[in-house]
């Protein structure tokens, strides 16, 4: 005698319908809800314990929806599990303070990193995990599927078609995960229009659109003023170009944010050209539209750039350079963080960027003892992609040089991605950049994390550049040799002072350590006069007036 099993297979769909019915009266026309009804809308569609995605990353922010979420009645909506790329706004933590949200899974926090650490310590917030972007996006399709997504775009029509344009960024990956698992998608836009310039998200994937009282917040995060680049950064950029870009003829790469890579970008049309490297390196990039790359683009160095996000002021320039950038039929850039991260992981031969601390083993981190900053996307780029199967000369050369290759795969040929960290031996306020133990380890103890938040692990790192020279640490035969190579470029830090002169000499003979002299770089030339553009105004001139820098970067 078997009991009859009745199982409902569309409970999510039914639940969604029930929620939508509850808020029907708030919809004005098509899918439009008035800004003043937003709090009521959220109270209607969100249930306690829901996984809620709040869109925002290091550039654009669904700030109006974030503020409205803080205003919901915590008796009705509570214990939310927030899944979001970035914790950047005050409101992102206020929802925890007010008892509306309880748990957090995220990737990166900037200005709120200190407050986040306090919340974790005080038990106001249960921290799931800190992810890299791709890792978090992956979990949106497995165990962190949003029930409700609060996203942001420039424009929408009444049917819910979204124009996310230049700053499309994370929106597609979030909306797809939410909508196709029967979730609810709410979008704030700057303007509701009759016809959007192009459809970035189709209207039937969106449930509600709201015109926010003011345009969403956006940060010009990738603009570096050439006027602030120092002579030391110029020297390190010369080393990078000669000792790595030229040495390996790296064709595809990601440049991290910062003055080191800005200096490299501005030396390509001068020093790079002098070395005859044009066409041999820097053809393909995964990169936000860095203004400092304009001179190299104008001189014909670059073939293609795919972007994670946009950059304020670069709109018209990108539009006029559709051979280089990914531009829609309407003329504006289409960025996409998920695809760009995937390209950065699998299709790029090199990651190069700055860091804050490197330990004696070669692990590096940007974490400090009392701030839970997270990772963003750098580790996706700054690691060897084990699933990579296509080859390139740079990748193969780096693999051939890999000191422990034989121990790992025998005689089987295999490439290796170049992962380069640039760091002056001392940071601001004379803090040493080379340390016995990373602050990340102290943070792990202070905040009770499972792991110290390491940005790039030593086994992925291939090169370290300081003002003292380049350490080709992947060439080392074992950890002992690697530690000696790190000491050799660590200058006058405590780690550097332990370097043994004889040992360093041997490393230089082996080509594991190269000083500017070994690279035949004339250090008297290492000054700002080598930069293709020395200030923001010269970047505007290079762009033929197409680049329009935000006020905070204009000195005119």
């Amino acid at each position: 005698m078997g009991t009859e099993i009745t199982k409902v297979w569309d409970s999510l769909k039914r639940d969604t319908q029930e929620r939508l019915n509850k808020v029907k009266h708030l919809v004005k026309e098509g899918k439009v809800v008035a800004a003043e009804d937003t709090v009521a809308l959220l109270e209607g569609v969100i249930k306690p314990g829901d996984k809620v995605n709040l869109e925002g990353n290091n550039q654009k922010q669904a700030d109006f929806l974030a503020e409205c979420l803080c205003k919901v009645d915590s008796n009705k909506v509570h214990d939310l599990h927030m899944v979001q790329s970035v914790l950047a706004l005050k409101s992102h933590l206020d929802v925890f303070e007010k008892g509306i949200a309880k748990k957090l899974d995220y990737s990166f926090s900037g200005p709120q990193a200190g407050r986040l650490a306090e919340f974790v310590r005080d038990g106001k917030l249960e921290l799931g995990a800190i992810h890299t972007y791709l890792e978090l996006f992956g979990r949106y399709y497995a165990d962190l599927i949003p029930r409700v997504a609060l996203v942001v775009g420039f424009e929408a029509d009444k049917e819910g078609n979204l124009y996310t344009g230049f700053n499309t960024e994370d929106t597609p990956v979030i909306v797809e995960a939410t909508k196709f698992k029967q979730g609810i998608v709410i979008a704030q836009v700057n303007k509701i229009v009759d016809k959007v310039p192009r459809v970035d998200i189709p209207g039937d994937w969106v449930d509600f659109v709201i015109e926010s009282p003011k345009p969403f917040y956006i940060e010009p995060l990738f603009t570096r003023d050439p006027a602030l680049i120092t002579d030391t950064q110029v020297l390190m950029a010369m080393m990078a170009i000669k000792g790595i870009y030229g040495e390996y003829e790296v064709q595809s790469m990601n440049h991290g944010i910062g003055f080191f890579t800005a200096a490299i970008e501005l030396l390509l049309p001068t020093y790079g050209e002098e070395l005859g490297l044009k066409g041999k390196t820097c053809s393909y990039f995964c990169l936000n539209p860095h203004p400092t790359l304009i001179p190299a683009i104008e001189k014909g160095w670059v073939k293609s750039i795919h972007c994670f996000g946009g950059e304020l002021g670069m709109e018209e320039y990108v539009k006029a350079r559709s051979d280089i950038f990914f531009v829609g039929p309407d003329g504006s850039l289409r960025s996409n963080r998920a695809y760009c991260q995937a390209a950065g992981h699998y299709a790029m031969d090199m990651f190069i960027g700055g860091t804050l601390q490197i330990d004696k083993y070669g692990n590096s981190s940007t974490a400090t003892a009392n701030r839970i900053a997270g990772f963003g996307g750098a580790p996706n780029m700054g690691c060897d992609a084990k699933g990579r199967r296509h080859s390139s000369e740079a990748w193969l050369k780096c693999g051939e040089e890999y000191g422990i290759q034989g121990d790992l795969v025998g005689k089987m040929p295999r490439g290796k991605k170049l992962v380069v960290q640039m760091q002056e031996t001392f940071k601001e306020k004379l803090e040493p950049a080379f340390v016995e133990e990373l602050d990340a380890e102290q943070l792990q103890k202070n905040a009770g994390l499972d792991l110290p938040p390491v940005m790039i692990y030593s086994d992925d790192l291939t090169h370290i550049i300081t003002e003292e020279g380049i350490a080709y640490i992947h060439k080392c035969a074992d950890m002992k040799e690697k530690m000696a190579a790190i000491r050799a470029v660590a200058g006058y830090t405590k780690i550097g002072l332990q370097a043994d002169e004889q040992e360093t000499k041997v490393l230089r003979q082996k080509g594991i350590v190269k000083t500017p002299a070994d690279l035949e770089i004339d250090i008297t030339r290492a000054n700002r006069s080598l930069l293709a553009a020395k200030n923001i105004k010269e970047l505007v001139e290079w762009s033929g007036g197409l680049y329009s820098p935000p006020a905070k970067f204009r000195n005119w």
Partner: protein
Amino acid sequence: MLNWEKLQQLNFTDANARERAFGLVDKGSFTEFVSPRDKMSSPHLPVLGEAIEFDDGIVTGLGLLGSRPVFVISQEGKFIGGAIGEVGGAKMVKTIKLALQTYERVKKITPASYEKRLPAVIISFETGGVRLHEANAGLLAHAEVMDQIQDARGKIPIIAVIGSKVGCFGGMGFVAAATDIIVMSENGRLGLTGPEVIEQEMGKDEFDAANKALVFRTTGGKHKYIMQDCNFLVEDSVRAFRTQLKEIMNIPFPEIEKYRRIGSLQLVEEQLELVKSAVTIGPKDAQDMWKYYGNDNPQALADISPKEFLATVKRRERVI
């Protein structure tokens, strides 16, 4: 050794104090006084555990512009923001003193043709004013420099050159105003209270120091040129500044007085009129003044190159 030819092409903004001192005078003519080899550094900084520089952030020396001996004072913004302490201040004072002694000697030796050999003083400013670590000595240095400038009045021209990164602020803003002639580039900034200090004291709504466009249109060379706070505006290169200085050397000395902005009852009255007019005009932004003086599209003026700017700009008309 610095390459003089290359220095001429350098952006003035990027040139350090020594490069400016070498590059602003004729090729090969510069001799440095109290150079870093003499290790004349601040006695106060080591007491506070702070780093020193062997020139205390001020380069002084003598060069030539044509037949004219030129005494150069050049401040280094990279060392404690160019702030003036005891040693650097003394170097400034002594350099002007030497210029005055040279004036007396030249006049005595060649009384008929001394104007051809008339010394001049060039001060290349890059400073926020007093070095707070040695505040009393630094303040005193300001007063002594002012005193020397006053002594030089009617004898030798003192020319201010402002186009470096830090600008010229604080007490040194007063000192610059007390010189005979001011030459700026559009990257040069001149004022009393620096933007960050205004923001700190009065709030971001009063003055947003992170808004570079605001900072430069309020304190930058173009605004100062329109307002007649500076006499000449040049392009951002060492060569352009040097060319302008050479032209200034051709101005007959009695004319120099006309370039001054302060220093007589008449000039005080002119300044007071300006203050009065600010009340009646009620500008909300520096560019309101640009408009008031007949520049219909001020932002377009801000966007264009110095050359185009000079060709089209309308300035405040001076009454004298």
